[in-house]
């Protein structure tokens, strides 16, 4: 398991390929990449600044990955999240999971990004034509957690 928080840009394809390297028990790899869009909540976005809570960020991400590992049989997990200045089209976050079978890989990857969205201390400030604005949390991100509640 690797958790990385960095300002530098990264190559999602290279992250994806790391999840298989040399592991002949891996049958399925699922990777999620989040990108900066040029449009959000009805406004053009010229870029953004990503703030975080150093120290807590890494702890929160490790905790989320550990919850996923306790719930699904995973072989490896990679989480990378950028902070600082980002331009439209750049990748923000990568979550990749490998497993023997696909259902575990899909569910664990989706679980990790859903929890990251509501539990990891990152905040986006977008540059729009009307000046910078803090992005509002989406109710839909909180609702997304409902599907992971144990029955």
């Amino acid at each position, binding site marked *: 398991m690797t958790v990385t928080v960095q300002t530098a840009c990264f190559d999602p394809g290279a992250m994806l390929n790391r999840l298989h390297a040399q592991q002949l028990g891996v049958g399925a790899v699922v990777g999620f990449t*989040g990108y900066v869009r040029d449009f959000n909540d009805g406004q053009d976005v010229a870029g953004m600044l*990503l*703030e*975080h*809570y150093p*120290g*807590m960020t890494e*702890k*929160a991400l490790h905790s989320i990955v550990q919850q996923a590992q306790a719930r699904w049989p995973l072989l490896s997990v990679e989480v990378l*999240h950028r902070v600082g200045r980002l331009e439209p089209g750049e990748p*923000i*976050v990568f979550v990749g999971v490998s497993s023997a079978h696909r259902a575990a890989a899909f569910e664990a990857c989706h679980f990790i*990004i859903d929890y*990251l*969205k*509501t*539990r*990891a*201390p*990152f*905040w*986006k*400030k977008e540059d729009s034509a009307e000046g910078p604005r*803090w*992005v*509002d*949390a989406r109710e839909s991100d909180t609702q997304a957690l409902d599907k992971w509640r144990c029955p």
Partner: protein
Amino acid sequence: MINLQFFARYREVLGVEQQQLAWSPELSNLRALRDALLSRGEDWQVLAEPRLMCALNQEMVSLDAPLQDGDEVAFFPPVTGG
């Protein structure tokens, strides 16, 4: 001492990023600490927002979490990463 931190919009509104605060037994939990901060003036009412989030020693907790001398406490708006 309590090590207080504010992030994102709260940091900007309050003009404070980090602050030390003397601990006292009345500050029994995070809600008592938050309420004490509200009395500081108008800007601080931002901490009355219903969606306020808080962390105790870098773990997300509710306002009911008990507070002890030496703790690190952070208040911030809902997170928007990913």
